[in-house]
């Protein structure tokens, strides 16, 4: 008897793609990939109806390994391609995987606008707080004071809260998880996919190679322990004082609201157009 987990892997990993994958030993992106596969399998979504798009970066390499309709776009622009796919064929489930740089540096504008439009898309942001692929330059989520190859004297910029940006911009569902808290991650992703409207799952991930190494966490184990020690669940966070929360970050569902998605709204436009009610 083949183990269930092995069956799932066989079902979703691509056979014509070379394994092991390109990521560094211990890179959290592989853990995210596993979580994503389980979430999709758990929801019972048809592979033919699932589109997985990404931008450029270590995280951008993810879709190539799974047997869906997959798309590796340009740096920062994945959400725009996903927008086109979803609007052109609303019956597809469109997931978008992005790195932190990809989603919030070069792609920041597409991100906030996709949230504003409440497009029925799932954005999975793999936040390793650094530019992994290009060699460890700072990203918009690199913590103040840390080191990177382009902040050799310490980083002076403040990090975005990806989740706050998403909420302010209008996303329907916003969650944060880590590659340490995997069973929870499976659930956060699965809920995000189910959600009508724009959903964002920010995943804190270890890039020990480019971030950890320069910030006294040079191996995956140390970084995963850091996630373990600094994450607090949203429910627990509510009970904590600001001092207790200092230096911590919350994980779990941060926002979950209901409002009509863009796809729904556009269908109304079509109905009006066919009834020829041009308003202006």
């Amino acid at each position, binding site marked *: *008897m083949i*183990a*269930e*987990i*092995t069956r799932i*892997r066989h079902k979703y*990993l691509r056979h014509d793609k070379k*394994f*092991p*994958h390109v*990521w*560094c*030993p*211990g*890179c*959290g*992106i*592989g*853990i995210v*990939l*596993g*979580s994503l596969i*389980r979430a999709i399998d*758990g929801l019972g979504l048809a592979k033919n109806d699932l589109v997985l798009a990404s931008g450029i970066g270590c995280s951008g390499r993810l879709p190539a390994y799974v047997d869906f309709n997959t798309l590796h776009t340009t740096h920062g622009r994945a959400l725009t391609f996903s927008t086109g796919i979803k609007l052109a064929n609303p019956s597809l489930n469109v997931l978008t995987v992005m790195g932190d740089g990809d989603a919030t540096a070069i792609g920041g504008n597409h991100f906030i606008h996709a949230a504003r439009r409440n497009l029925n898309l799932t954005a999975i942001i793999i936040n390793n707080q650094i530019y992994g692929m290009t060699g460890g330059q700072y990203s918009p989520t690199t913590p103040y004071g840390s080191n990177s190859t382009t902040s050799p004297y310490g980083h002076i910029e403040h990090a975005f809260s990806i989740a706050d940006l998403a909420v302010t911009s209008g996303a329907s569902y916003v*969650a944060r*998880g880590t*590659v*340490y*808290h*995997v*069973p*929870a991650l*499976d*659930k*956060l992703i699965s*809920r995000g996919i189910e959600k009508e409207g724009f959903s964002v799952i920010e995943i804190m991930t270890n890039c020990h190679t480019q971030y950890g190494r320069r910030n006294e966490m040079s*191996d*995956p*184990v140390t970084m*995963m322990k850091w996630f*373990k020690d600094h*994450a607090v*669940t949203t*429910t627990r966070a509510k009970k904590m004082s600001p001092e207790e929360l200092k230096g911590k970050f919350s*994980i*779990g*569902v941060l926002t979950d609201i209901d409002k009509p998605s863009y796809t729904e709204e556009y269908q109304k436009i079509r109905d009006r157009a066919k009834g020829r009610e041009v308003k202006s």
Partner: protein
Amino acid sequence: MTPEEETVRNSSSTEVQDEYWEKKLEMEKKGKKLFKQQIFLDWCKGCGICVAFCPRKVYEMDEMGSPVIVRPDDCIGCRFCELHCPDFAITIIKRYPDRRRRKSDGS
């Protein structure tokens, strides 16, 4: 789906179970189950996550930097290793002490 997977997947909230294997440890006290660990060395990159986090120290690193299964029977089937191996190199299967015919499975 194995009962263990069910436990993991049906956890009733998105709350994070930081110490989910501790619960498993308790479960274990109630009735001992056996698990088999499979490592696909072709895919393993020797990152050491399984070795570091296994609550029962089932794995150790060999001198070439590969994990080896040293205490297979201590495994409590928490699947931490399986879920966290970034390279899909570990599978945990229930072992049936009475039915050993599935040897060809590997490990």
